[in-house]
């Protein structure tokens, strides 16, 4: 992962870790623990791939393209998981773009 996106990793790990742990331990939804592991895995893969901005955008498009296909083949549970991933992806995108925006403003 390029230094540009490095900080995102920590913000998201903290955020996702908190919500997943609260959800898993307090509200007893162990299924969310799987999301947490997968998310960490994703970050590891992204670190290994060292993606540039284009690849990052393509990941988003890929996620978005996946949802209608999953809806058409009626794999709704998987579609929901992907939608949650997409949501997280959009959060990442916002944080990255917001940081850029602040930098440019300065």
């Amino acid at each position, binding site marked *: 992962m390029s230094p540009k996106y490095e900080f995102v990793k920590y913000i998201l790990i903290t955020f996702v870790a908190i919500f997943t742990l609260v959800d898993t331990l307090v509200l007893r939804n162990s*299924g969310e623990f799987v999301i947490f592991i997968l998310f960490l895995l994703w970050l590891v893969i992204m670190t290994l791939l060292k993606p540039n901005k284009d690849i990052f955008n393509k990941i988003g498009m890929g996620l978005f393209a996946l949802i209608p296909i999953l809806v*058409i083949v009626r794999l709704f549970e998987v*579609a929901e998981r992907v939608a949650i991933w997409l949501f997280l992806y*959009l959060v990442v*995108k916002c944080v990255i773009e917001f940081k850029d925006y602040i930098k440019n403003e300065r």
Partner: protein
Amino acid sequence: MNLPLFKKYINIRLILLLVLLVFEAIHLKILFGNAEYLAGGDNYIYLQLETHKMFPYYWNNVLHPFGSINFAMPDTLGMQLYSVVLGFLSGPLAQRLILYILYLFRYVAFYKLIKYISPKVSVFALVPAVIVYSLNAFSTLDPFSFFPLLNAIYLPLSLYYFLELFNSDNFNYKTLFKLSLLSVIFSPINSNIPLAVTIFIPQLLYILFNFNKLNKLKIKNVLAYYSLWVILNLWWVFPLVKYFASSASTVFSINWFSATGVGNTFMNLRFLGQWAWYSKHFLYYYYPFNAYYDNIIVVLVTYFIVGFALLNPFNKNSANIIKYRLYFLVLSITSLLFVGGSRLPFGFVYRFLYENLFGFKIFREPFTKFELIYVIAVSVSLYIALINLEKLINKKYKTALFGGIVILCLISAKPVLFGEHVWTKWNGNMRTFRVKIPEYWKEFRDYLVENSIKGEKIITFPKVNYGTAWNWPEGFTSADDVAISFVGPYNYVVRNTLTSTGGDIGIIIDNIYNIKNPNQFYLGFLGIRYILLENDLDWRYSGSNISPPSENLSKLGNMGVQKIKDFGMFDTEYLKNIPNSTPFPNDNKLLYTELENKQALSLYEINQNYVNPLIYSPTKIIYSTGDSSKLSEIYNREGFDNKTLFLLNQYDSHKKSYINESLIGLSSKHVLYPSKIDPLFFPERIDWEEGWFWPEVNVFPASLEHRFVRLWENIELIRFSKLEKLDRYIWFFSKRVEEIRKYSNDLSTEQKMGLFNDYISSVNKGFEIINSLPVDETDDTYVGLLKKFIRYFERSLAYLSTMDLNITEDKSINGLKEKYNNLLIKVMGENCGEYCFDFKVPKNGSYKLNVNNNDIGVGDLTVENKDYAPLRPELFLEKIEIGEWKDFGITSKFAEIKNFLSNQKYKIKFDYKTNVPKTSVSIVEEISAEKKTDAIQKKSSFEEDLHVFDINPINNEGLKGTRYCIYLEDGSCYSHFETIFTSKNDIQNAILLLEFETTENTVKNLQIQRVYEPKVNLVRSEEEFTEFNIPNIAYQKLNPTRYKVLVENIKGDFILVFNQNFDKKWKLFQQSIIFSGEETAKDFPNYKVTEKPVKDIFWDMSFVKTLIKKPVSDNNHFIANGFANGWYFKNDSGVVKLELILEYTPQRYFYFLLAGYILMISVIVGVVTVKLYKIKKSK
């Protein structure tokens, strides 16, 4: 042709506007079809466009026949104002105009927002974005609902002005004024508070987004806006706060419908996800066009549009637009988070707020409240993404691409374009939204006007529930009684459509329908003068127990009321036009047999001698502890006349004291309903509930893995809530027992004892928590967990008793049993048995005791020492005989239950062996075939006739789980079973069926008893009581919050009753009043009361006179007849005449606010004029 001039005025935006004007006209035509109105469900309010009346009062008689705080105050500037302003148009035309403007302004508002973000508006990007914003799948949910349509305008418009205000470089008076004005114009949205507050979300987010840019000026602008908003909206906030503070808490706690965790993120992404989207009601889906959105092409198109908008693949934004693009991206994510509600995985905060923050419960449908924010965010993002695309493409292909994108957007909008989202089907109580009002309703309305019927209470028969259907030529469905749209603004329809919001008077009204033979005296006593028989109400599909026309006619016939006018006739030809698509042949036939040659509407009048005036003085008092539901019972049984005052609910069972004690001695009778003292619950009647599971264990307790299990259990105990901890301990001790059971052969005695000790420790921890908590009867979780603890503990003990552990003499287990017994004592409280009553009386003396309508005798009771008096159980329980036992297969037995009756409570109890595979008990109820044609039919096992058998699911009680061994007999362990059940309707006979799964009979001491509802009351008749002399009364309604009352010829003490719902804020003031030359509108000679003509004076200077006056008799203001206002006047000074103003004092706040607004506007206008003058002068 003058081309430059043409070019000057005709530009692309004007053409676009013209296209929109024409398009919306056609679109509206499609939506309406041939209908007169678009109305139905909650949107029946459009029918009131012909009322032409505003109600700027804090007390409202239209919402409630007996008055209530005006929680619909925000709507004053909504449909009420429109009905007045558009009074020159017919109702249908006015509705068309309103909808046309609402639809049109939705586009305009969105355009304004876009123009602010990108001043050089691109038509290429605008048209698709507008289509997505206005005609998306989310908008299919409410095709013509007033508040969502208003919101769709206000949300973008308020955001646009907010952006302008926030980004301005001066203190922006102009925008502040516009924003404030908008908040007033759009104040009707506040009738739907959760929807209304959503407009602040984008604004607050924008402040956060620009947090680093906040400076004094921006803070000043924003604070000025929100302060102005609060000040300018106080006029409707006040009654709403009062309503929420009083009634809403009750509403929240009763069956509060909630859809906080419904839907999916993948659906929300493309504007879908309403709770009922894929739900069916009766014959059809709520949204029959839902299949369209599942079409492969539509799925791809709808996701493509949203994906394109959010991902913005061709990022060529200018610096200014980047900011907004990013802002709307953040807004879309935030709104998605809100839309998700309490759904996983991000919903825990929402869930916490929903369950713990008072008032947050109004956000019970997050999708419908927040999705529009997401829609607007996506639509603006789409616009920005399309601008980028436009920059990239060759001009040659631009038109083709534009056409292609518009087609894609139109594909996603097809159901909206063709009006498929307007409901038109016959579906039980759902009927078409395309409504044509039958002529007879208009005739009824005209009749009331022509005959000057004004200020009257009209009760409708049959009862109208929320969501009732009417058999109109096209059909009609309404949330409220349709009659309210036709009785005019000054008559009131007596109804209680929603039980949860009806209050005490709601109970009283419902009782009228529940009585087999209601009488006109009682209706008159409540001040009801007319009865409207609505034969066009579809009794078949409008809730349970709605009586058919023939039954209603018979009831009215028995009442002896006089029919004064019929409206409309259901002849054979007319009935052919009424949709009747029920799939049930009997129901289909019923419509014709019941309605043929009957009048559609009939108006009846109650004998005017029996009708109580709005303000009157009663002659005697009946003092009772019965609640409002007992009013008709006391009234009818004791045969009192209408000049009687009933003081109900006079015993505070918490304080154990009587209310209005000063009136006890004046009362002619005391009718007491001793309250039953119930335990927290009956421990022996706890059923093993559906959601309770006995643990399954798969980890060997001596393994290393089991250490992780225990570690995880310890982590799970890290909780703040004691109740959650208790739940965990229940689970853990059950697991230990199950581990001993499952791995019994593989564990050493030492290992088993280790698990056993853990079991003891967990149970003890459970007892510690229970003992540390106070008994809270109102907390369902607490009570539920106590039940669960008891049943799991019993079951665990039962399992332990069958194992090879030598624990019978174990001190710790005996200690647990002792704690268990103490817990049962705690649960039962001070309960003195099953039929235990609080017999505290208000006055010493002899009281006639009546049980289940049987006089038991007369006995002396005193105030001091009769708190509890157990009654003989046989007064409430009747032993029921069981017939001869017969075999049913090899392992089951059955017997007839003698004299089994419908709709009765029965108690069954027996002891059974716990060390057998299974024992289950069922009551099989026999229903005559003609009564239940749709049930499965089979032959009776003991009669040859064809009958229908229905196993009452409530009564089909499998003895799930295993209970604690209560006693041992002949080496067998026995437990006790006991339950109370209710028999179904139309029962002819019943059998008791026991299944054993063994040839042995494992049941003994079986008993069935009929349980009578313990109707216990005490009546004391006073030989000496005060009979009040009634004075002469004249009154006049000046407006809903103000009455003139003249009381003359006063002889001693007297009581005044005001037949409107009790509110402490109704006050009486002494003030000289004049009825100058006023003729009498109504005369009530029996009551010595005259009513002057109803007036409608919004404001009069004489209103200020009461401001400085102290209210009269305010300490003696009480609830009369269970719902109304009553005042007791002690006439020590011997006055003979009283001139009074009866006022609902909160209305003063409205006047003050109005004066404040006028002053504020005058000051602003003054300041602006001076500034303009100075500017002009300086020039």
